[in-house]
């Protein structure tokens, strides 16, 4: 079987096995987003203004949290060692794994984001902008985040270190993604931001599999 599909399928199989792991990133996304109404003054206008930003930050954090465990069990049970020995292309395998991971996190939460927008009273024309931005941005989040996951896999408390490594790299995506929304609120054009997100995605798709593979080779010994 093709390396990419093999790893993609295996990852899916593992996720399905852990019954609720498919709905967990989504639930996490929703819960984070809903933390804000509790901690801010209850005013509809305020919530509406910050809604888009909150949703983007929640998406980033939900991705981040789910990334942590991405290589963890592979490392502890020795699967990673076996991958390193194996002649199948490691970068391709990593790409498969990352994409599978994305479908269960980024994709799902992009699809759900419109519902969340409704609770924040975000107008429907902006919902589309947010949706498109998330769909283009979240794969980059996963791909870039996987590099951090690979670098920190051997560490206890890797979860927090991963955030430190990766969040700075997420800032550009966040700026373009959430900035798009601010633009849209003011009725401005958002295509340039969409192009920027697409460019980041292309870069991430081509380079990060190699970076992930390299990171694993460095950390596992």
């Amino acid at each position, binding site marked *: 079987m093709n390396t990419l599909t093999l790893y993609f399928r295996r990852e899916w199989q593992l996720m399905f096995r852990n019954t*609720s792991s498919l709905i967990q990133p989504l*639930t996490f996304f929703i819960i984070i987003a809903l933390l804000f109404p509790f901690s801010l003054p209850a005013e509809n206008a305020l919530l509406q203004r910050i809604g888009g930003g909150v949703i983007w930050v929640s998406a980033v954090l939900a991705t981040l949290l789910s990334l942590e465990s991405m290589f963890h069990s592979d490392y502890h049970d020795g699967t990673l060692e076996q991958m390193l020995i194996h002649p199948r292309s490691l970068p391709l395998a990593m790409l498969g794994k990352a994409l599978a991971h994305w479908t269960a996190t980024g994709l799902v939460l992009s699809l759900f984001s419109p519902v969340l927008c409704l609770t924040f009273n975000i107008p429907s024309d902006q919902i589309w902008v947010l949706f498109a931005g998330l769909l283009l941005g979240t794969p980059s989040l996963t791909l870039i985040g996987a590099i951090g996951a690979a670098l920190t896999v051997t560490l206890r408390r890797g979860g927090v270190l991963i955030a430190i490594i990766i969040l700075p790299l997420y800032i550009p995506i966040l700026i373009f993604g959430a900035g798009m929304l601010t633009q849209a609120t003011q009725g401005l054009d958002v295509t340039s931001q969409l192009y920027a997100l697409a460019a980041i995605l292309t870069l991430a798709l081509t380079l990060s599999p190699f970076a992930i593979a390299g990171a694993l080779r460095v950390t596992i010994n």
Partner: protein
Amino acid sequence: MNPFTSIWTFLSTTYHRLGSPREFYRISRYVTPVFGFLFLTLSALGAYFGLFVAPADYQQGDAFRILFVHVPVAWMSLFVYVVMAVAGAIGLIWRMKMAFVVTICSAPIGAAFTALALLTGSIWGKPIWGTYWVWDARLTSELILLFLYFGIMAVYYAFEERKTAEKAAALLSVVGVVIVPIIHYSVEWWSSLHQGVTVFAEGGPKMPPSMLLPLAFMAVGFMFFYGYALFLTMRNRVLINERKSKWVRALAMGESI
């Protein structure tokens, strides 16, 4: 024999009988339809009085008729949680198998009641408050209750081994019971858009009898519905849990127990 002893003997035999899956399955066969019947009668009466008899509210017009589903359903969402937590505690302390089954099987029913309370509440909110949703204490804490129900179900399904899963879910339901007083008193503790305590208020219900009567019918009827649905689900769970045992096999082959 003095009445106290006989009541005690009765209670303890019932406890031991219901504590055994097999006895539960046998007894519930007769009890479940009774619950179903009581539910149907009471809620039919409630619906009749609520929809046909009770006069329209002088402020809300006919919109207030949502009350007869919203309030019972909202009460049930809390009641079911309390039952779950109590059953979970019993299971953890006295290692009673059936108590865990009560906890696990109540979760989806409670979640449904909670979701209904949220839905009917927000539908009612549109004409009354002018919006479907506000981030108000009562509403948000009810939303949290929904998440708590989901959390308990997620925990149950996350574990491979049933015994572990049951105990973990029971423990979480016991821990989470703090949310119930928060929801109940939220209207008093925080300034809230939501209606204050109306029915069980000090100095009697602040509600005309024409409203109170159908509400009471509906509320008690829903209580029986909970018993009915719970027993139906529990019977399935018992079959699954005990599928290796002789009596379930005999049952599946059409023998009676």
